[in-house]
């Protein structure tokens, strides 16, 4: 039990070269699935431990912090670890059939190797308490996800991966410049130590610059409007399970990094009161929500539509978080959790469609709901959650976001959130209308329902969407605890 934090990283990391060494049959899939479930169980155990005993500090290799690398798990990390490993546990089994169809057979074991590396990197970013170690994990996850995206069937996957590589590397380099400047001012890389030392030098221009570099760099990684341009192509042309995994976890982890940096390292007072981040971030996310929702509305490909909607949803998260009130941060973190569930479920449903008809264009889906009712019911329920209909997870986070806006008296923000949800109704309806209310073309008569191996992971996420829309003790409860501790009120 004491070694859990290390095992959480070491096990998926070791499984990556093992996957690559296995032959191109079902073995790498079996290994990856077992590992992802084992990691999920460990993340649950770790979360229970954190809720029970408070923050856990693990000295990697026995080197005491702040000199050695510390793994520091508080409520916030534990929460994000649960999201990443939960999505991983749902998407890896899905890969079995879906990747088997979409990825060349001679590259299957390498696919699982890359998948596990991305998984390791994302878990590592979340668990570490050292800002340089975070950079290393960030690059592990990014490099492997560029390669994963380039595995897509369409040749545009290559240019999408290239574009993502350029933007992602610029983002990571900006981050590392910020880290260097912070190190120059304090002589430490440990987050807790930095939080302790930074207030004494916070007047220095170097620290202002460090904040600017880090926010810009992480902003690129989390696809904050207007630096989201890499995201739509990357999500559209990646293989289906990769789109589902990356959309549900990678940007969420980047949002986590921003939260960790702004709230823990720089401190709430410095980030939001000394530096004017609240108006900047709220303005960017509001414009982003509207512009990208309208873009989503005009898309012809369902995957691309969801990708644009992802950028809009990130806007909701950032808007909530940058209010820097307990309610606002709770809303942002809850949406982080819920959005992972809904986008995971929607992209998996599209993965089922791609498995049967080899396309995700809306025109190709006409009437398909009659042939694949389970798949499109999953899509419809995920879509309802995306819109924020009561009794789904999406409603809960939007509800908290509106409460947070009203608490500050920012009624315009509440109105904007509701108005943007109406655009979401329109773009989700586009797909639903084509699939359910058009006749099935003659040449699609022989399309059958997606296989159970694909439907089960998809429906697991659908049920999670419904469950967390009704029982919010876990999702909102943990987000609330994390928000309180971030804002300095309690453990």
């Amino acid at each position: 039990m004491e070694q859990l934090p290390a095992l959480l990283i070491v096990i998926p990391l070791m499984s990556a070269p093992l996957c690559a060494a296995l032959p191109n049959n079902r073995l790498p899939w079996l290994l990856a699935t077992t590992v992802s479930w084992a990691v999920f169980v460990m993340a649950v155990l770790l979360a229970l431990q954190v809720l029970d005993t408070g923050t856990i500090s693990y000295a990697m290799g026995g080197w005491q912090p702040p000199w050695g690398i510390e793994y520091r798990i508080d409520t916030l990390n534990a929460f994000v670890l649960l999201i990443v490993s939960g999505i991983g546990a749902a998407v890896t089994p899905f890969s079995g059939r879906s990747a088997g169809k979409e990825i060349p057979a001679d590259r299957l074991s390498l696919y699982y190797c890359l998948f596990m590396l991305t998984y390791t990197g994302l878990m590592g970013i979340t668990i570490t308490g050292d800002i340089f170690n975070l950079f290393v994990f960030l690059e592990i996850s990014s490099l492997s996800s560029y390669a994963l995206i380039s595995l897509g069937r369409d040749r545009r996957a290559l240019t999408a991966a290239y574009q993502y590589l350029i933007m992602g590397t610029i983002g990571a380099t900006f981050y590392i410049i910020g880290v260097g400047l912070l190190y120059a001012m304090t002589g430490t890389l440990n987050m807790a130590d930095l939080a302790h030392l930074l207030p004494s030098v916070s007047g220095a221009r170097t620290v202002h610059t460090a904040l600017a570099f880090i926010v810009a760099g992480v902003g690129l990684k989390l696809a904050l409007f207007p630096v989201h341009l890499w995201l739509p192509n990357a999500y559209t042309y990646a293989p289906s399970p990769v789109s589902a995994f990356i959309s549900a976890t990678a940007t969420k982890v980047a949002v986590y990094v921003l939260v960790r940096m702004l709230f823990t390292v720089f401190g709430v007072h410095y980030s939001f009161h000394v530096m004017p981040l609240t108006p900047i971030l709220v303005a960017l996310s509001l414009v982003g929500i509207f512009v990208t929702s309208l873009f989503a509305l005009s898309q012809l490909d369902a995957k691309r539509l969801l990708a644009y909607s992802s950028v809009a949803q990130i806007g909701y998260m950032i808007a909530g978080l940058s209010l820097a009130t307990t309610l606002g941060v709770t809303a942002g973190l809850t949406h982080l959790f819920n959005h992972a569930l809904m986008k995971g479920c929607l992209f998996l449903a599209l993965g089922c469609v791609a498995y049967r008809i080899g396309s995700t264009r809306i025109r190709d889906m006409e009437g398909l709901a009659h042939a694949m009712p389970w798949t499109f019911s999953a899509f419809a329920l995920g879509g309802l959650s995306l819109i924020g209909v009561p009794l789904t997870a999406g409603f809960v986070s939007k509800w908290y976001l509106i409460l947070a806006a009203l608490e500050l008296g920012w009624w315009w923000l509440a109105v904007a959130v509701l108005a943007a949800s109406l655009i979401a109704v329109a773009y989700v309806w586009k797909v639903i209308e084509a699939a359910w209310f058009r006749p099935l073309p003659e040449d699609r008569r022989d399309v059958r329902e997606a296989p159970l191996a694909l439907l089960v992971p998809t429906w697991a996420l659908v049920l999670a969407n419904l469950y967390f829309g009704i029982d919010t003790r876990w999702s909102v409860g943990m987000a609330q605890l994390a928000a309180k501790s971030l804002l300095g009120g309690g453990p």
Partner: protein
Amino acid sequence: MILLGHYNYLIVVFLMMAGFYTVISRGNLVKKIIGLNIFQTSVFILYISLGNIKGGAAPIIAEGVKVYSNPLPSVLILTAIVVGVATTALALALVVRIREAYGTVEEDEIHRQDEDF
């Protein structure tokens, strides 16, 4: 004079801007990667400069050595160099595959082909 005394930081700023500009302005995919490399190299120099102390020796315990440079930034940059090499290798591999698929490494040409497609 203060500016000249910090000439290494001026070099960092120059390289950073030159690399960044190259990434943004060039349409050739290989040139973009070269720009990205220059951009990353500037950060390496920034870190090494931070750790250096005027007249400092290498951080090895020896008689008569009182002033020594901070070794940590150099170690961090070793890691960053490895990351940089991996990024470049992956980027070039992607460019090779893009060239196989499109027959060109010019961004404009690729966009034009995708629109026709």
